[in-house]
């Protein structure tokens, strides 16, 4: 009897509040659901680089046997250039390799290679077989320069501006889609910016 009067009193007191309280679980569920749904389209393998908008680490690497030009920080003098981390043992590097060759043929942008933890003779054989798209190649035998670049998966491609600052980083192979939608517009923009900055 007392209980019935209590409930009736509660219902009379604030029907709007009760309605809102009833809605609360729905709101909480929708919020959590939304975040989880967003998570579905995130790639857990893509880690934001700590080096974006930071200068390229100091390095000076020797060339491959039979090649003349090694790669050092001081060589990155163009308004835009790519530093592509590759290795002959890296399967995904072969996937992006034809695209790099095409970019080199068309003179899209200077591409430098960072040969990461590779056997130098293996790397030379690889380049002889599939073609050499690189302007300069530095040999990073023990992977220490790679660590300074924050490399954790090959291939990785760094887009470096004329001041030696890393503007963008592409993890994994460059695909035609990445080239069209991301890389080419970025290169054009960086060239335009560099042109505007020059007197």
């Amino acid at each position, binding site marked *: 009897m007392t209980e019935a009067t209590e409930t009736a009193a509660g219902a009379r007191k604030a029907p709007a509040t009760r309605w809102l309280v009833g809605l609360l679980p729905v709101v909480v569920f929708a919020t959590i659901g939304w975040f989880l749904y967003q998570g579905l389209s995130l790639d857990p*393998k893509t*880690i934001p*680089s*700590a080096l974006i908008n930071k200068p390229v680490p100091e390095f000076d690497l020797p060339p491959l046997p039979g090649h003349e030009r090694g790669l050092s920080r001081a060589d990155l003098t163009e308004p835009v250039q790519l530093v592509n981390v590759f290795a002959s043992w890296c399967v995904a590097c072969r996937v992006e390799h034809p695209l790099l060759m095409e970019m080199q043929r068309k003179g899209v942008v200077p591409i430098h290679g960072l040969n990461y933890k590779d056997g130098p003779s293996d790397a030379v054989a690889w380049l002889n077989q599939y073609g050499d798209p690189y302007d300069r190649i530095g040999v990073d035998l023990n992977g220490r320069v790679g*660590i300074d670049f924050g490399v*954790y998966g090959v291939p990785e491609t760094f887009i470096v501006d004329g001041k030696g600052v890393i503007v963008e980083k592409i993890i994994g192979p460059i695909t035609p889609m990445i080239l069209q939608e991301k890389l080419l517009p970025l290169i054009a923009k960086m060239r335009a910016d560099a042109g505007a900055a020059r007197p």
Partner: protein
Amino acid sequence: MRGLFLAIALTFAALPAFAIFTEKPLADPEQEARARELMHELRCLVCQNQAISESNAPLARDLREVLRERIAAGDSDAEALDYMVQRFGDWVLLQPPFKPETWLLWLGPLLILVPGAIIAAIYLRRRPTSARAGTPLTEAERAEVARALTGQE
């Protein structure tokens, strides 16, 4: 049959144990202990949710080597970790640092707990006093209870 299962189980149990011992430890045991400790805090970036202390991935091996070098060169624990963060970002730390970007992560549980506690407190206070303490029984009720209890004995 049981022996076979035991043998398989033991084989896999032993694998992580010898993964690390193929490397040359630091000469100073105190430094080596610190380096080992830090290895548990750094993520093996290629294997995602494993510490570099327990991974045999080449990058994990390299990072252990770099870490030992930093400690041997006289880095403090914080400096050695910072060296890694500068190269790989906060993600290299298995325990995310407390900073504006991660406030929601660290304080999120409180965001649920505190309102929950408030709602619970309000609910418990609103409950009719009779339900909380119980109204004292009338004389007649007492007599009835006593009768029932003695009657059963």
